[in-house]
């Protein structure tokens, strides 16, 4: 499930007893401030590991998790829903007889976790006879007793509800005053209190924070029956409530006058702009289909990177483990061995679980591996995948990449996408410089509709704002734009990437994978980039 789908979810639970039970039980706001004592977590973990070893496990890891989420959902002048959820419990994963076993419990007693650990060993032993080869884990050095926290300034969970409601009501009023007919604005706030222990000798306590403030602003022209939506240009971030301070340092004004945001978001300013731009979209001329040079803003490019690079370079997809759900990958092992030309020499793409402010940043992943940054594509050539401990040997690597994640204590951890980002160009290059060299192009800001095939070859992307570029100049706002790509051809058409001064993050708060499905949050950074000769279609239709 992607962010757009989750917005739809936000409209469904209004007024009825529909709770986001997928996120846990509903709690009072004041409970969002508390934590479980680390000594209690260690005692539970030791009880589980001892029970697992006694039952015959050769490896055991224990995740004691407390997952807190708060949603504030509004439309126009109404608060539709405020929900606080908590989910607490213990997930235990073991290897016994060379096979994995997993069990989880929400009972926070030594007896209950020991019982779950024993169950996990029994499941592993039951699975062992049908296993074609024993699990092979890349080695990890025990981290000892350590802790880490997302470097936030303001804990979103401690900001009073009234301040959050006042913020969104102010945003909505500003949009309506600026000419919007409708607005939906939402705060999604997440705190994962995760304790990981393993028989490798790790006791890792992490406190992870994330924030997302999406909105949809709609303008309607009743006379013509046309309507247009402009979504917010914020990014979900691994930051505290300070992200919504609207600091000047977080703003960039693009050559066409549109303001975009980096590590600080001015939601009210963006709502006012959205109201005006949604109205302008109704009157904007329709694009003439054909080949164009595309200039893509980072608020747009993140989703193209996510779908056409991040997903196909997940090793479990490459191997076929996701064939029935998320899909496989065109970027097969033989292509890695041959250093396949994935993109032009301007394309350098890195995976990074350490990047400050990103959604995926942690010190250790969910199997106790110290996180790092590594290359996926260097000078356009495919050089790596994303792999976890039991996959590293398949890629010929001696260590995990540290990108294992579970969205809950009750779900088993598995390989998830790291932050995957396009490195900025090394030569000095501003957005204005880039546009000045484009003869016949389209400048796209914000992410829109997205669809890609199950092997990540053929994709189609829309956007929020489209501007025609003629002879190096931005001439007018246009509409009905979508571009269609074949992944390797698209990345090989990358002609320029702006320098680091333009680098910004975008991201997905609810990226789905696995059966039963799990979500994860992941960021993708880039500077504005130019892609030559891309196929653009016109998406306007007539219903007669």
């Amino acid at each position: 499930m992607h962010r757009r789908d989750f917005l739809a979810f936000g409209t469904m639970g209004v007024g009825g007893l529909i709770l986001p039970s997928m996120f846990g039980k509903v709690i009072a706001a004041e409970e969002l401030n508390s934590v479980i004592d680390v000594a209690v977590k260690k005692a539970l973990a030791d009880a589980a590991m001892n029970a697992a070893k006694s039952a015959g496990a050769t490896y055991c890891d224990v995740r004691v998790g407390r997952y807190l989420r708060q949603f504030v959902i509004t439309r126009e002048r109404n608060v539709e829903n405020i929900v606080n959820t908590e989910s607490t419990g213990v997930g235990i994963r073991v290897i016994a007889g060379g096979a994995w076993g997993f069990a989880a419990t929400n009972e926070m007693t030594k007896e209950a976790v020991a019982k779950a650990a024993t169950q996990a060993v029994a499941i592993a032993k039951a699975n062992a006879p049908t296993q074609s080869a024993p699990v092979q884990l890349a080695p990890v050095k025990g981290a000892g007793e350590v802790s880490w926290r997302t470097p936030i300034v303001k804990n979103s969970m401690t900001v009073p509800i009234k301040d959050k409601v006042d913020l969104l009501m102010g945003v909505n009023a500003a949009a309506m005053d600026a000419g919007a007919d409708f607005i939906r604005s939402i705060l999604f706030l997440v705190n994962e209190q995760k304790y990981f222990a393993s028989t490798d000798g790790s006791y890792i306590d992490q406190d992870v924070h994330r924030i997302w403030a999406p909105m949809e602003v709609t303008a309607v022209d009743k006379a013509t029956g046309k309507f247009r939506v402009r979504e917010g240009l914020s990014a979900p971030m691994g930051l505290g409530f300070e992200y919504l301070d609207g600091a000047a340092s977080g703003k960039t004004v693009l050559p066409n006058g549109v303001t975009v945001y980096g590590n600080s978001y001015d939601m009210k300013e963006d709502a006012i702009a959205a109201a005006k731009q949604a109205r302008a979209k109704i009157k904007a001329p329709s694009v003439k289909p054909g080949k164009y040079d595309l200039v893509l803003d980072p608020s747009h490019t993140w989703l193209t990177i996510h779908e056409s690079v991040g997903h196909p370079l997940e090793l479990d997809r490459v191997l076929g483990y996701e064939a029935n759900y998320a899909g496989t990958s065109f970027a097969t092992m033989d292509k890695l061995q041959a250093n396949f030309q994935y993109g032009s020499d301007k394309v350098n793409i890195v995976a990074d679980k350490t990047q400050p402010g990103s959604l995926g940043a942690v010190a250790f992943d969910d199997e106790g591996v110290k996180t790092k940054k590594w290359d996926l594509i260097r000078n356009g050539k495919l050089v790596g995948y994303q792999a976890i401990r039991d996959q590293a040997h398949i890629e010929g690597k001696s260590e995990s990449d540290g990108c294992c994640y579970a969205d809950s204590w009750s779900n088993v951890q598995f390989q998830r996408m790291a932050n995957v980002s396009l490195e900025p160009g090394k030569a000095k290059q501003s957005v204005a410089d880039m546009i000045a060299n484009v003869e016949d192009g389209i400048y796209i800001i914000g992410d829109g509709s997205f669809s890609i095939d199950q092997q990540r070859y053929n994709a189609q992307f829309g956007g929020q704002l489209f501007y025609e570029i003629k002879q190096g100049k931005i001439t007018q706002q246009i509409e009905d734009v979508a571009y269609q790509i074949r992944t390797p051809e698209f990345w090989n058409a990358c002609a320029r990437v702006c320098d680091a001064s333009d680098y910004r993050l975008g991201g997905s708060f609810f990226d789905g994978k696995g059966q039963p499905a799990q979500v994860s949050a992941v960021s993708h950074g880039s500077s504005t980039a130019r892609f030559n000769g891309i196929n653009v279609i016109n998406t306007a239709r007539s219903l007669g």
Partner: protein
Amino acid sequence: MSILSEAQAKAILTKVVGFSKADECTAQLTGSIRGNVRFARNDVSTAGITDNIELSVQVAYGKRVGIATINQFDDAALERVVRRAEELAKLAPENPEFMPAVEKQTYKPTPTYSAATAGITADYRAKVAIDSIAPCRAEKLIAAGYLEDQAGFVAFMNSKGNYGYQTGTSADYTCTVRTEDGRGSGWVGHNVQDVATFNAGEDIRVAMRKASASAEAKALEPGKYTVILEPAAAAGLIQFMFFYFDARSADEGRSFLSKKGGGNKLGEQVFGPQVNFFADPAYPGAAVYPWDEEGLPRGKMPIVENGKLVNMEYSRYWSQKQGKPAMAQPGNLIMTGGTKSTADLVRTTERGILVSRTWYIRMVDPQTVLLTGLTRDGTFYIENGQIKYPIKNFRFNESPVIMLNNVEELGKPVRVKGDEADAPMVVPPMKLRDFTFTSLSDAV
């Protein structure tokens, strides 16, 4: 524990509602046991059971609402959850669109429960995996699939005396079969209430046949073609219909059912004359609970008759505002059709394309409900009533509104589940003219 008897559920709900001091109180119990088995690369990868029960309590003081939940059921816990909901309600801002709890209703039970599905065991799931994997191993094909089954119940009561209790089951099986060289891919899906009608060993043959038959695909030029969408392929587009018929968004001017100058298209011809949609909570094989999220009783509700829009969905709030009768939100969507199979539709097609399945469908333009997505797992060229050869997959950009105005013929409807919607649908195979493919995909 997760599936309470009616007496157990009623006892808990009565206590909860009795504890409340708020202006009104609604309590709901939901419980389920979900089992699953997942396999890939011809090996079982994971299997598990999740067992969960939850009590939700919603109270209101005037237009201030508070909701709390708990999964403990002793008297102290029940009182605690009510007090917590009451505290939250007192802190909450007023909701101008607040609607009071529904009065006492009468619900006619619907056939949502199957003992066979509720009786699924770990051994049954393992057999489904083996029945899927073994024939693939034997023919050098590779299977990846998933079975999830669940049995559950819902019970609720409010302070106005309304009450409901019912149990339900469902099972969803999907399997993707690929050739060893990765040049062919097939898929089968089976979504049922009652597993008595399900046989993985038979289903897997469909996916295997398609995997083998779809290798050696030729490329056709993108463009407009007559297509036959199998029910699973059509479901990908039809699942968006669950959100189509909302009166409020149409009245607000932001739906394809909005009228120029204001109002909605209720009573107008919006699809071709062959098109009929209705909702029916008691529909055999696709039954749903006889109440909606607000507690309104569901009945059989025609939505589109001979292409004409005859009913739209009015929430309780919107119906009150517009002076219309409130109607329960549908829980399923039934599309009528004829008696022909997909194969029958192929036989009467001079030139066209057979689409087995659609994938990753997203809204491009809500103004026209333009959707984009891809074909997969078996796309074939038809000539003179016969499948001639497999073709490479296409990306389409098509609006179901336009598509349902281009119906040539509809076949026999079957129950299907969309990739991204849980509610049951009954959809026929459909032959459509001028379906718009916009590019080729190399994906298999």
